C-alpha cells in the first residue's frame, strides 16, 4: 500500500492575483459562461478535460463583494500577492524544501467550471523537502502557490452554479511523496503538516480552509481522492478504498471468467404509462424517458453483500447529472410493480445471471451514458482503477473523472516570471513556522508550562497568540490560563467572541495598571457583558486596585468585628469590597496588623 497526501490551505488577506479581499458576501449579479476544451502545448487534449466536455454543461457564476473583473475572467491577472508568496516560501523553508529561483506560474486546465478562466493558476515555490514523523521522514515533492476555485452552489444535468467569493483566494498545496505506509501514518503526517500550516499568521482558519487530497494505491493504479475534509476521514477514506478495490477485484475475477457486456438501452417508457412509482411518474412528467439495459452476469454483483458494482455505474450517470440509477439487485423496489418488472425483464430478455439497470433521463443523453458505462465496466474488469475520486461527507469516495495528465499544464503568460531575491528570502526566514516538537520544548522549558498547558496551546493552535501576548504581559501561566480557560469559558457563557485585538488592549492596560490575573479576568468579563469601550475599563470601581491604606482600613474593620484568621481573611475581605486587590498584599498587611 502506498499513500501520498496533498494538503491545501487558504491564506487570508488579499486574493492571489487581484486586490479583492479574501472575505466577502454575495451580490445580485449573475453571469453565464461555457467552456470549450483546448489543446495543450504538446497538441494533446487532456483526458480529464475531454471527459468534462462530454458533459457539456453551462456554468452560472454569482458575483460577490470580493470579486472583480479578474475573477470574472474579464481582465488579465494582476501581479502575484507578495504576502502570499512570502508565506509559501516560509512554509517551504519550514519543510526543508529547495526554493526555486523564479516563480513561473502555470495554467492547469480545469473545465468543470470551477474556474471562470478554465484553468487554475499555480506555480512551484519549493521542491524536495521532508517532514519528520515517528515512522521516518515523509518526503515533500512540491509546494505550490495557487488560486482557489470558485465555490460550487448547485449542479444538475444542464448546469453548475458557483459563487465567485472563494475564487482566487491564495491556496498553498503541499504534496508528499507516496512514502506513507498506512492509515495511522497518514493521519500523523497530515497532523504534523497541518500544525505548521495553522501556525502561519495569515492562515485563513475558516471551516473549509484546509482540504486534503489522498493519493492511494494498492497495486491497481493510483486513485486521487479529492477533498477529504476532516483529518479523521483520512483513515475512513483509505479503509473504504481498500474495501472497494478488494471487492472490485473479486468482481473482476468473476466477470473475467463469465464475460460481461452491456446491451444498448431500450426506451421502456411505455411500460410505465400508468405506473404507481412516484419517482418514475415525476420523471416522465418532466419530459424524461425511462431507459433500461441488460448487463450480463452481474446478478448479485450490483449490490449484494460486499459487492457494489451498481454504485460504480451509478457514479458515471451521476456525473452526467443523471441521478437515481436503479438496478435489478434492488428490485422489487421504487414502487415498481411486479408486472412492470416482468415486462421489463421480458423485453430485455434478462437471463438468470443478468442484471438490469434503469435510468430516467432525456433521450439525447443516452448514447453518451452508454459509452461511458461501457468504458467504466471495462476498466473495472481489467482492474485499471486509476482515476480521480471525490471524498464524500461520510468517509466514502465516489468516481469523479479520469486522472489528469501533464497535458493540462501550460505557462501563464499574463503573469511575468517573478524572481525570488535575497530580500524576499530574508523576509520569509522571519516567519518560518516552528514544528510541533520545537514549540512543545519551548513551552515546557522556556516558559515553564506544564505538559497539559503546552498540549492545550498546541492542540488549539494558540502558540502564535501566546507568543504575542507574552510580549505584552510576561506571565506565561496567566496567559496560558487566559487562553485555555478564562476566554473559552466567557465565550461559552455569554456566547461571545473575544478577539485577539481586545485581549492585547486589555493586557496593555493590565501591564500599566499593575493588574494581576484576577483583575484581568474581571476586566474580560466586564468587557464581555457590558460591551463597553476598553479604555473605560480603567475607570471602573470594580477594577480599581485598593492601595495599602485602603487595605489596612478594611482589615482593621474585619479584625474588630470577627474572629479573622489567616485562612479566611481573603473570602471575608472579598465580601467587604467590590474593588480588586492584591491577595498577597492583604495577607502581608493582615499579618502585620495582627501582630
Amino acid at each position: 500500500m502506498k499513500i501520498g497526501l496533498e494538503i491545501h490551505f487558504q491564506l487570508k488577506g488579499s486574493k492571489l492575483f487581484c486586490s479583492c479581499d479574501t472575505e466577502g458576501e454575495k451580490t445580485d449579479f449573475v453571469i453565464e459562461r461555457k467552456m470549450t476544451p483546448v489543446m495543450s502545448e504538446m497538441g494533446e487534449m487532456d483526458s480529464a478535460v475531454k471527459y468534462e466536455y462530454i458533459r457539456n454543461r453551462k456554468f452560472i457564476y454569482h458575483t460577490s463583494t470580493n470579486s472583480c473583473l479578474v475573477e470574472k475572467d474579464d481582465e488579465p491577472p494582476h501581479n502575484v500577492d507578495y504576502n502570499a508568496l512570502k508565506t509559501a516560501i516560509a512554509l517551504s523553508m519550514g519543510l526543508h524544501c529547495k526554493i526555486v529561483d523564479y516563480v513561473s506560474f502555470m495554467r492547469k486546465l480545469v473545465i468543470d467550471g470551477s474556474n471562470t478562466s478554465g484553468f487554475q493558476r499555480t506555480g512551484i515555490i519549493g521542491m524536495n523537502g521532508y517532514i519528520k514523523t515517528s515512522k521516518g521522514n515523509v518526503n515533500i515533492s512540491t509546494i505550490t502557490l495557487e488560486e482557489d476555485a470558485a465555490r460550487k452552489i448547485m449542479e444538475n444535468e444542464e448546469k453548475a452554479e458557483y459563487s465567485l467569493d472563494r475564487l482566487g483566494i491564495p491556496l498553498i498545496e503541499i504534496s508528499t511523496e507516496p512514502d506513507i505506509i498506512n492509515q495511522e501514518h497518514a493521519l500523523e503526517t497530515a497532523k504534523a503538516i497541518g500544525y505548521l500550516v495553522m501556525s502561519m499568521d495569515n492562515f485563513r482558519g475558516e471551516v473549509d480552509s484546509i482540504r486534503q487530497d489522498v493519493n492511494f494505491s494498492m497495486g491497481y493504479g493510483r486513485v486521487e481522492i479529492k477533498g477529504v475534509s476532516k483529518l479523521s476521514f483520512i483513515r475512513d477514506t483509505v479503509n473504504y478504498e481498500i474495501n472497494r478495490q478488494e471487492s472490485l477485484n473479486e468482481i473482476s475475477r468473476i466477470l473475467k471468467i463469465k464475460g460481461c457486456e452491456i446491451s444498448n438501452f431500450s426506451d421502456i417508457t411505455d411500460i410505465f404509462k400508468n405506473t404507481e412509482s412516484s419517482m418514475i411518474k415525476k420523471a416522465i412528467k418532466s419530459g424524461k424517458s425511462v431507459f433500461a439495459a441488460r448487463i450480463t452476469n452481474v446478478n448479485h454483483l450490483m449490490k449484494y453483500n460486499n459487492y457494489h458494482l451498481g454504485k460504480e455505474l451509478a457514479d458515471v450517470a451521476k456525473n452526467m447529472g443523471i441521478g437515481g440509477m436503479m438496478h435489478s439487485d434492488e428490485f422489487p423496489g421504487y414502487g415498481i410493480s411486479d408486472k412492470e418488472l416482468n415486462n421489463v425483464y421480458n423485453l430485455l430478455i434478462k437471463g438468470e445471471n443478468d442484471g438490469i439497470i434503469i435510468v430516467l433521463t432525456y433521450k439525447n443523453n443516452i448514447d453518451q451514458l452508454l459509452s461511458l458505462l461501457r468504458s467504466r465496466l471495462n476498466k473495472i474488469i481489467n482492474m485499471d482503477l486509476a482515476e480521480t475520486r471525490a471524498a464524500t461527507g461520510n468517509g466514502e469516495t465516489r468516481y469523479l473523472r479520469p486522472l489528469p495528465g501533464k497535458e493540462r499544464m501550460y505557462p501563464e503568460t499574463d503573469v511575468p516570471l517573478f524572481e525570488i531575491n535575497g530580500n524576499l528570502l530574508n523576509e520569509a526566514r522571519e516567519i518560518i513556522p516552528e514544528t510541533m516538537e520545537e514549540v512543545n520544548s519551548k513551552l515546557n522549558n522556556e516558559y515553564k508550562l506544564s505538559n497539559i498547558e503546552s498540549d492545550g496551546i498546541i492542540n488549539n493552535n494558540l502558540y502564535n497568540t501566546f507568543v504575542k501576548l507574552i510580549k505584552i504581559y510576561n506571565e506565561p501561566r496567566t496567559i496560558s490560563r487566559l487562553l485555555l480557560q478564562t476566554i473559552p469559558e466567557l465565550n461559552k457563557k455569554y456566547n461571545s467572541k473575544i478577539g485577539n485585538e481586545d485581549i492585547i488592549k486589555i493586557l496593555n492596560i493590565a501591564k500599566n495598571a499593575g493588574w494581576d490575573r484576577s483583575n484581568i479576568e474581571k476586566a474580560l468579563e466586564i468587557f464581555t457583558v457590558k460591551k463597553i469601550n476598553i479604555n473605560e475599563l480603567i475607570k471602573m470601581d470594580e477594577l480599581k486596585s485598593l492601595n495599602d491604606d485602603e487595605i489596612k482600613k478594611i482589615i482593621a474593620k474585619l479584625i474588630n468585628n470577627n474572629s479573622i484568621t489567616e485562612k479566611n481573611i481573603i473570602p471575608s475581605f472579598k465580601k467587604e469590597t467590590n474593588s480588586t486587590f492584591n491577595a498577597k498584599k492583604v495577607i502581608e498587611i493582615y499579618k502585620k496588623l495582627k501582630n
Partner: protein
Amino acid sequence: MLTGQKIEFSYKDNDYNGIFISSDNEKTTIKLDNGYNITVKNEDIKIKNVYGNIQKNKDIQMKNVEKHGKNNVYILTTGGTIGSSIDYETGAVKPVKDISYLYNYVNNIDDYNLFHENMDNILSENVDSKKWINFARKAKEKMDNNSSIIIFHGTDTMQYSAAALSFMFEDQTNPIIFTGSQRSSDRPSSDAFLNIEGSIHFSSMDVGEVCIAMHSDTSDNNISLHRGVRARKMHTSKRDAFRTIDNSEIAIYNNGKIKINAGYKKTGKNNILNDKLNDNISIVYFYPGMREEDFYNMVYNKYAVIIMGTGLGHVSENIIKVIKKLSRDVYFFMASQCIYGGVNLNVYSTGRELLKANVIPLYDMLAETAMVKAMYLSANYSDNFVNLMKTNLRGEINNRILW
C-alpha cells in the same frame, strides 16, 4: 539543447527529469514530469544527460468539415488574439497555423462550407492603410466567388479596419464580418468560440455591409452585429468591449437564432471596390493647455485633420488662431471626445469662432470613422470632398439620436 529534448539535471543537490524548454544567459526553463515549468538560475543547475529524440508536438486533430452546406464562408485570418496561441518557447503569443479546431465546436456547422486563408500574422496595432487595401482586395476576390467573408482581426484597431472596408466597398454581394476575441483561444473560457459561431450565422444574412460581431455582454449568450462605421472598442479587456455608439446593433445572435434590431443595407448584385486611400490625414486630441506649436506641428501639411474637441466640439482660443492661419490649406473637421452624442458649434461662442475658422462639424460621426472616411474620400472624390464628408454614406452619421 533543443526545445522538447528530454534531460536529466540536478538543481541544488537534487536530481530531476524534465523536458528542456528554453534558456538565456541567466536562466533555464524546464518542464518537470509533473507538468510544471520551473525557471532556475544557470549557476544552480547542472545538466547531466540530454536525450537525442525530441518530444514533437503532435498535429492538432482537425474535424473534417464536410462540404455539403448551403452557405460558403471564407475565413480570412489577419492575426490578433483570436488567431493566436501561446508560443511555449518564448511564452509570447504567436499566430495559429491551423484554425480548424476553433470551429470544431460551433453549432449547426454542417450548414456551412467553411474555407480558410491566412492573410497576415500581425497584431492589430500594426495594421495600416496598405493592409486595409489587401484585406479589401482579398474579400472582393472571395465574394466574387459567392462567399461571405469573416475576418479574424485583433480587437484593438478592428473598428478602423471595419470602417475602412465599409467605405472602400461601395456595393457588395455578401456580408463582411470582422470578429476577434478578448480572451485568447488557448483557454477554455475564450470568447472566440462563440464570436465565431455568431459570425458564421450572421454571414448567411443578406447584410450588404461591413460589420463587427462580438459578445453583447460578459455572459456567453448573445453576439451583437455592429455596423462597422458606428462601432467602437469601449473597454480594454471585457468580452463585451464593442458597442454600437448612439444606435442599436443591427442584430443579435443567440443559440442558433438571429434577431434583427435595426435596418441595414441589403446585399447588392456587384462588388464595387475603390481601393485607393490617402494616408495624409490625422486625428488630433485636444487637451487643456495644449501648446500652439504642438498643434501646429501635428496638423501642418496634412490634407485633412479630425479634431477631437471637448464637449460639443471645442478647443481653446489659441488653437483657434492656429486653425484660422492654416485652414486655407488644411481641412479641419470636428468630432467630440465624449464619444456619445453629436457636436454642435452653434451653442457657445467658441463653436461659432470655430465655424468662422472654417472648421466643419461632423455631428455624431466617430472620430476614427471620420479619419478613415477622409482617407477614402480624399483619394477617390477630392472634387467633392467636404460635401461628401458631411453626407451620410454608410450609416456613419445618425441624423437623429434616439437615446
